[in-house]
């Protein structure tokens, strides 16, 4: 009887630890010591979640994963048996250095101290490196002339957790002073000027080393090919330095007339080798020969002579350039199934180009490979045979094509995880197709891609060819690798940018099949944010069949100040200053303020961009604008009206596809038009203060290769602005603008650019005429060149443009690249503005033609155009000159 309770009690006591270890669902997770990241991020990395029980193996992976963040010193996860279900995560982060202060450095340069102290501000405080840091700095200070220097390092905790201040105490001791400099081997005054040291200076060996290097370079420039500066010795204030410039080298080149001596001398290897030997002389001659061959002097002869004189080496190069020969013709007898033109594209030689034996060397191999890739597996190419004629070199390759092989069938072996039918579709080669190695290689990559995209890591595809006569059966043998899945994402290096900003750009979800290509896309998206100067993405082994992904980013400077000054033919002097910050609150929100000024207008714009509006991938943009503007008659310089506008715009944009973008904006403007010339007034709303409240939906399609200087593609867009009293507008109108521009590469170096655009506006309700600020104007550098800015269309009897409710515009440009940076443009522009939509008459278009120049800059081409009116009206100028930046359209 006594044994039973004793036994039960013992059992219970023994079982207590096990009971404590029992996996109880997590009720709460307490985190201690965390500062740099959010608790939610740490819990995500640790793979802990409320209501789930702890998986110890997953947790261990989680701790290692969290360490990849690079900020942790220590992580411990424990559970308190007194509080079942409560998990405690204790972390300690690395200390970060707030600042490094140097005390007692005296006249030693701060740069030297900073560069030679290995612990840097904003770096991690590695306490184990303190001794090494002190020692390295002491050595640098010693070399700077203070051999008895003592360096000690102390640290103190900063005001915030995990921040420390480092103080470096330097006791310089007595410096070594240079009392006298003795130069051995050369006159002292030839040397001392380079040494950076003079009597009375502290004996700074780093400065001396730099000085010695400069002296060596000085001798090399003077033609000494192997100068020796040093060694040096220092004793009791006396600096002894040995200098031996060595022997001089004279190079004489004669007989050259088509390649300059300067260019040829750049090829000489003597200075680099620090020696002049026969083999180096031959190497120099060979380099010269190659250069001559590249320029078409295939028959160049170069003789070299090396002569040793008492104080110098003299190398003479005698050049007989011969004549410059071009390729007169290229023949390929025997080529019948492939046009000779096609084969000529493959080889390095071009008819009409300079003849070079080096360039022709591999051409026979290239032709043979090409034939084989097309299925002519027995093709043979001999040559080249080169015959020199008065017209140039006649080059021929003898070709034996042989018979063409065909595909007898395609078989797939080893596929299990992806249906063979799907793989056959991806291969895309069928029986009867010509045998083509390039197609087969592409098919193999497509199958590999397919496996890779579905997470079958390390899969292999080998293609076996089974030949029978001139037919081949292709066997795609697949070795399927294990399937892997995306695990967790670890984001490293974001100090200001919130982790969520990066996470929302990621395209994969945890558990999806792992695909390396997705990582590349993600990396590109992160770069496109503009927040990072460096992004690296790598996959690391995660839990089970999962690969965790590590995104290492280096943040770029988010703030920018920009300014510019310029001159326009219309506004005269103009300029802008802009201040922007691209990562407000670490959320990738951008804010900017921009001031624009010219002789005609002043504008201030306060802009805010939110890339993810209300948590959705829809960019939101808002800006406040204040504008003071004068509209002038360009011909008479008379003011037509003045305008002050306060405007608020806010709206969203959404990329619907890669090429299609939609937007929706709301605009509210308070426009005060004053000093209006009476004859340009069409409506009472043209004078005084007017509130315009409108919505503006728009859609655009853009497939241009480069928006700043397109060479191909299409840009098209439609926008509709609706102002209505329903939105508290004092004027009611609808305004539609539609345009399409296309760009076509004709043949090198010509690009054809076309644009058609129209605008239609109509007042309604109480509004008959649109207010002047909303009417259409044409003419000027971006519309119809040859007409001054805004001068096309209806005018008052005094000749002042009043704008209209409709316009048509067309442009045709041929853009010619003269050089890499210089371009020529020939254009024809046409267009006109009509007061009412019903007045539109294509027969009433005004035409201009002209010529322009473009000079490429990083911000787009600088543009000068001169347009001539083709149907000039009485009293109009014959043409106009226009300046601007960027293409007209």
């Amino acid at each position: 009887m006594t044994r039973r309770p004793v036994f039960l009690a013992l059992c219970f006591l023994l079982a207590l630890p096990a009971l404590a270890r029992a996996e109880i669902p997590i009720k709460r997770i307490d985190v201690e010591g965390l500062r740099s990241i959010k608790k939610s991020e740490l819990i995500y990395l640790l793979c802990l979640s409320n209501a789930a029980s702890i998986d110890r193996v997953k947790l261990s992976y989680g701790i290692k994963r969290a360490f990849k963040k690079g900020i942790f010193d220590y992580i411990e996860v424990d559970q308190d048996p007194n509080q079942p279900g409560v998990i405690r995560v204790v972390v300690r982060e690395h200390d970060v250095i707030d600042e490094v202060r140097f005390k007692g450095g005296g006249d030693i340069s701060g740069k030297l101290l900073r560069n030679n102290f290995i612990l840097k501000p904003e770096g991690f405080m590695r306490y184990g490196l303190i001794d090494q840091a002190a020692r390295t700095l002491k050595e640098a200070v010693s070399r700077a002339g203070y051999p008895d220097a003592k360096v000690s390092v102390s640290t103190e905790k900063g005001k915030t957790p995990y921040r420390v201040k480092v103080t470096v105490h330097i006791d310089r001791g007595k410096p070594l002073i240079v009392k006298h400099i003795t130069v051995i081997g050369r006159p002292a005054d030839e040397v001392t000027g380079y040494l950076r040291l003079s009597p009375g200076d502290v004996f700074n060996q780093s400065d001396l080393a730099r000085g010695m290097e400069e002296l060596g370079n000085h001798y090399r420039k003077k033609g000494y090919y192997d100068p020796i500066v040093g060694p040096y010795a220092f004793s009791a204030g006396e600096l002894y330095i040995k200098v031996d410039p060595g022997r001089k080298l004279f190079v004489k080149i004669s007989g050259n007339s088509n390649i300059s001596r300067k260019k040829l001398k750049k090829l000489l290897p003597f200075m680099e080798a620090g020696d002049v030997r026969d083999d180096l002389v031959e190497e120099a001659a060979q380099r010269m020969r190659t250069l001559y061959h590249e320029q078409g002097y295939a028959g160049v002869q170069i003789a070299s002579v090396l002569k040793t004189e008492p104080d110098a080496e003299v190398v003479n190069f005698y050049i007989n350039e011969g004549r410059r020969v071009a390729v007169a013709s290229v023949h390929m007898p025997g080529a019948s199934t492939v046009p000779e033109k096609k084969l000529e594209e493959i080889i390095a030689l071009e008819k009409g180009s300079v003849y070079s034996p080096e360039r022709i060397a591999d051409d026979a191999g290239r032709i043979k490979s090409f034939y084989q890739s097309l299925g002519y597996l027995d093709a043979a190419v001999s040559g080249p045979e080169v015959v020199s004629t008065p017209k140039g070199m006649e080059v021929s390759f003898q070709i034996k094509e042989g018979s063409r092989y065909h595909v007898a069938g395609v078989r797939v072996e080893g596929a299990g995880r992806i249906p063979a039918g799907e793989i056959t579709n991806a291969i895309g080669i069928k029986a009867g197709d010509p045998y083509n190695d390039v197609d087969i290689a592409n098919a193999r990559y497509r199958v590999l891609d397919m496996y890779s995209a579905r997470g079958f890591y390390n899969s292999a595809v080998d293609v076996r060819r089974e030949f029978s006569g001139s037919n081949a059966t292709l066997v795609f043998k697949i070795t399927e690798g294990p399937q892997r899945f995306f695990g967790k994402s670890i984001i490293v290096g974001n100090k200001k940018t919130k982790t969520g900003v990066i996470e929302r750009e990621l395209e994969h979800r945890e558990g999806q099949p792992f695909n390396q290509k997705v990582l590349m896309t993600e990396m590109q998206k992160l770069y496109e944010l503009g927040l990072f100067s460096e992004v690296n993405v790598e996959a690391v082994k995660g839990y089970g069949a999962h690969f965790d992904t590590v995104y290492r980013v280096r943040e770029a400077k988010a703030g920018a100040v920009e300014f510019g000054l310029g001159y326009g033919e219309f506004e005269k002097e103009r300029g802008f200053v802009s201040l922007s910050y691209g990562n407000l609150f670490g959320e990738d929100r951008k804010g900017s303020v921009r001031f624009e000024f010219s002789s005609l207008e002043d504008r201030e714009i306060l802009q805010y961009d939110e890339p993810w509006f209300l948590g959705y991938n829809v960019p939101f943009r808002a800006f406040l604008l204040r504008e003071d503007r004068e509209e002038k008659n360009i011909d008479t310089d008379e003011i037509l009206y003045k305008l002050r506008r306060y405007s608020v715009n806010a709206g969203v944009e959404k990329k619907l596809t890669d090429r299609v973008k939609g937007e929706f904006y709301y605009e509210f403007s308070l426009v005060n038009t004053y000093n209006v010339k009476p004859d340009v007034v069409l409506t009472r709303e043209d004078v005084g203060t007017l509130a315009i409240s409108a919505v503006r939906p728009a859609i655009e399609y853009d497939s241009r290769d480069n928006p700043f200087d397109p060479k191909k593609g299409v840009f098209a867009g439609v926008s509709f602005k609706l102002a209505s009293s329903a939105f508290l507008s004092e004027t009611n109108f609808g305004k539609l603008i539609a345009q399409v521009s296309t760009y076509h590469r004709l043949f090198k170096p010509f690009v054809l650019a076309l644009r058609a655009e129209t605008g239609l506006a109509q007042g309604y309700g109480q509004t008959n005429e649109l207010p002047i600020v909303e009417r259409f104007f044409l003419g000027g550098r971006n519309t119809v060149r040859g007409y001054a800015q805004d001068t096309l269309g209806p005018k008052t009897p005094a000749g002042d443009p009043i704008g209209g409710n409709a316009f048509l515009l067309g442009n045709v440009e041929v853009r010619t690249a003269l050089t890499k940076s210089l371009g020529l443009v020939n254009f024809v522009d046409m267009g006109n503005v009509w007061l009412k939509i019903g007045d539109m008459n294509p027969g009433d278009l005004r035409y201009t033609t002209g010529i322009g120049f473009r000079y490429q800059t990083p911000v787009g081409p600088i543009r000068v155009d001169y347009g001539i009116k083709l149907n000039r009206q009485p009293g109009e100028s014959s043409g106009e000159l226009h300046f601007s930046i960027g293409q007209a359209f």
Partner: protein
Amino acid sequence: MGSCTSALDRHSSFFLILVFLLAAAAPLRAEVIDRTVAFVNDDAILLSDLDNAYQKTHAIDPSITKDDVLQTLINRKVLLQDAQKFFPGPQDEDLLLKEYIDLKVRAYIRVPEQEVRAYYDRNKAKFDGLPYEKARDQIETLLEEREVNRKLASQIADLRARAWIKVFPPPGGFK
């Protein structure tokens, strides 16, 4: 006697229940589920890793200490981190280490013929009359492995000197 026994039984039972209640009421120490025992740059070595490795190694070599095992784990980690620079991407650690050692260590080792010969001459008795030509490959492999181990140790020392390594021993050290 019977009542005495019964009284004693009652006392014992009461005592045991008291002990149980006290034991049950006493606060239990927090149980560490896992923790960092060391880190090498941004890789952590955990208590669970150490315990697993120690269990396996101790079964083979009972004289080994936990600290020895931890140092081995650190060495392996510095090698793996360096290996990742040459062979990026997730892969089997043992295979990665083998490829790395082949590339960074073994590729530079050539055992001169005279060294093989000298070893044979010094240890002729051990070869039990086996002619040099037959023993040669065996000796070369042995000398190569020795050199690999020596160079690997030097490589590890170099990598450790450059790495940021921190160890968190429990109070009293690893047992």
